[in-house]
C-alpha cells in the first residue's frame, strides 16, 4: 500500500495578465499551472522537467504554500494544505522545506553560517540549550559532508565556494528534520565538476533520513539520474509522466522526444543530434497568455493533425504507470 506524501489534484495557478491599452476582450490570464495532477509516494524522488515558463517551479512553490493557488487541491499526508496552513503554519513549514537554486541569494550574506543554521532551530524551538544547538549544527554539517565544521561556523556566505554554500543551504533545510523537500534547480548554478557530488548527497540523504523530494530542473540528464519518476511539463500542463528511465530514456510524447533529441551529448554518434530536429519544432515557446487551442503543442508538432488542433488530449496510461497526453501516442510509441 503506497503511502502518498503529496497528492496534487487539478492544480491551477493563473496570473492576471496586464491589459494593454485598447486591448479588447475579457480578462487575460497567464496560465502558469493549468490543471496538473500527480502524486508523490513516501521516499520517492519525483521530478518535474521542462523549459522555462512551463510551470514546474510555480508548481513546487504552490505545494510549499509559498504562493496561493487559484484552483485545485494539494494534500500533504491526506490533509489539504490550505487547511493545514491556517491551523498550524509553523508545523507545515517544519515538515516541508526548500532548497533554492542560488545559495548566494537565498542565504542572507549578513549572517554567519552558525546564525543561518541556528535560526531554524530557534524558530521551531527545537533546541533548548547552547550545547544542544551546537551539536545539532555539527550533526547536520557532517551529514552534508562538510569535513571540518568549526572552520565554517563563523564565516559568511560570500566566503564559501558555490558547492560548499549549497551544502549549507541543504543543511539549513534539513536541520528541521522535514519529511518533504522541494529542490528547485539545486545544481544549475554550480560548476559542472561539483554537481555530481551534490546530487549524490541528496540521494544519500533520502536513504538516511527517509526524505521525499520534489526535484525541479530543466536538465534532463540530471533528472534521469536523480529522480525515480518524472513529469514533463509544457505550458502549464503535464504531457508525459512515468518512471524516469522510461520517460527520459524513451520518451513517447513529441515534445519530450524533441527535448531528448535536442539534448547535447558526448556520445560520438549523437553529437550532431540537433540536426535531426524537424524545423517545425522551432525554438520559441509560445506566450503563456496565448495558449494554442486543442493540444498546446500542436503548432510545433511534426505529427499534428486536425484532431490535435481541436481537442486537447488527456493523459492516458500507455505502459505500466507511464502516461502520455497525445492522441497518437501509441503509434508514435511503435517507432521506438
Amino acid at each position, binding site marked *: 500500500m503506497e503511502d502518498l506524501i503529496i497528492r496534487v489534484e487539478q492544480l491551477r495557478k493563473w496570473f492576471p495578465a496586464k491589459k494593454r491599452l485598447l486591448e479588447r476582450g475579457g480578462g487575460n490570464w497567464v496560465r502558469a499551472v493549468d490543471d496538473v495532477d500527480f502524486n508523490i509516494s513516501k521516499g520517492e524522488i519525483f521530478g518535474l522537467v521542462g523549459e522555462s515558463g512551463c510551470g514546474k517551479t510555480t508548481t513546487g512553490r504552490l505545494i*510549499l504554500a*509559498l504562493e496561493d493557488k487559484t484552483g485545485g487541491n494539494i494534500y500533504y499526508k491526506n490533509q489539504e494544505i490550505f487547511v493545514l496552513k491556517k491551523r498550524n*503554519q*509553523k508545523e507545515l*513549514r*517544519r515538515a516541508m*522545506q*526548500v532548497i*533554492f537554486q*542560488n545559495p548566494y*541569494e*537565498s*542565504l*542572507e*550574506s*549578513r549572517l554567519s553560517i552558525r546564525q543561518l543554521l541556528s*535560526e*531554524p532551530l530557534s*524558530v*521551531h524551538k527545537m533546541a533548548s540549550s547552547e550545547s544542544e544547538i551546537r551539536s545539532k549544527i555539527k550533526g547536520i554539517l557532517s551529514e552534508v559532508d562538510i569535513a571540518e565544521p568549526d572552520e565554517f561556523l563563523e564565516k559568511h556566505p*560570500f566566503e564559501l565556494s558555490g558547492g560548499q554554500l549549497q551544502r549549507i543551504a541543504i543543511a*539549513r533545510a534539513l536541520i*528541521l528534520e522535514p519529511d518533504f523537500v522541494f529542490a528547485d534547480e539545486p545544481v544549475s548554478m554550480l560548476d559542472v565538476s561539483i554537481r555530481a557530488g551534490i546530487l549524490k548527497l541528496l540521494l544519500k540523504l533520502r536513504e538516511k533520513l527517509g526524505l521525499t523530494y520534489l526535484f525541479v530542473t530543466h536538465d534532463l540528464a540530471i533528472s534521469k539520474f536523480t529522480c525515480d519518476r518524472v513529469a514533463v511539463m509544457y505550458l502549464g500542463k503535464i504531457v508525459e509522466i512515468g518512471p524516469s528511465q522510461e520517460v527520459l530514456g524513451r520518451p513517447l510524447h513529441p515534445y519530450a522526444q524533441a527535448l531528448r533529441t535536442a539534448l547535447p551529448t558526448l556520445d560520438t554518434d549523437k553529437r550532431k543530434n540537433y540536426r535531426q530536429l524537424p524545423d517545425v519544432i522551432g525554438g520559441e515557446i509560445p506566450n503563456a497568455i496565448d495558449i494554442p487551442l486543442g493540444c498546446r503543442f500542436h503548432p510545433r508538432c511534426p505529427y499534428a493533425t486536425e484532431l490535435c488542433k481541436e481537442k486537447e488530449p488527456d493523459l492516458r496510461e500507455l505502459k505500466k504507470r507511464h502516461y502520455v497526453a497525445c492522441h497518437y501516442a501509441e503509434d508514435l510509441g511503435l517507432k521506438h
Partner: protein
Amino acid sequence: MVVVGIIIIVIALGLDVYAHIVGPDPLATTYQGLSPPALDHIMGTDQLGRDLFSRVSFGTTFSLLVAFISVAISVSVGSIIGALSGFFGGKIDRVTSLAFDALYALPPLIIAILIAAMIGAGIVNTGLAIAVGYMPQYFRIVRGIILSIKERPFIESTRAIGAGYVSLIFRHMMPYAIPSIIALMTLNMGSGIVDVAGLGFLGLGLPPPTPEWGTDLGRGRDFITAGAWWPSTFPGLMIVISVLGFTLVGEGLDEIFRATSTRKKETF
C-alpha cells in the same frame, strides 16, 4: 567630520554640566538688568538681571532634551508604521502612504506650531509637537528599504524556514535600514533644536521662566535697538553651534556608512 561634531556637542554639554554645578541659578533675578558681558557675568545679564551664561548653558539641557524626545518619537512611530506598511502592502499601505505624504508636504515647524498651539506647552508636549513633522521621513526610508528587500530570495528562504512576521521584519529587514536611520536621526537632532528654538521664539513651547534659547532670543529682540546685543546673540550662537555639531556628526556618519556599503560590493 564626525569627530569634530562630537567634540562640539561634548563641549556644549560640558558647559551645561559646569553651569549646573558651579554657576548661578538661571532663574535668579538680580537688579543688574541688561548689564553687558563682564567678568562676573561672562555673557552679561538679561532684562531681569539673570545671568545669561547660566541661562544659555542650562538651555542646552532643555534644547537637547526636547530635540531628543522629538527624534525618539518620530523614529519609533515613523519607522514602525513604515515597516508594517511596506511589509503588508495593500490598502493599509496606500492609506498610510497618503497620510504621510500629506504630512510630508508641510514644513515640520508649521506642523509643530499647529500642534503646540493645540496641546499646550511642556517638555513632552513640545517634543511630540515637533516629532510629528519628522515622522514621514522615517516612514519613507524604512518603507522604501522594506519594499526593496521584501522580494529578495533570502527573505523568501527565511519565510520558508517558518519565521514569523515579527522576526522577518525586525530581525531580517530593519537592520538594513539602520545606517540611514541613524544618519537621519542625528541630522534631525539639529533640526529639532532649531524647531524648539522656533517655538520658543514664538512664545509656544517651553513655558517661562525656563531658560530656552529661542525664548531668550525672542525676548532679547526688544533690547537690540537699545544697544544690548548680548541677550539675543549668545542664545543664537548656541543654536548655531549645536546644530552645526549635530549636522557634522550626521553627515560624517552618512559618509562612513556609504563607504562601508560600497566596500562590501568589491567582491567579484
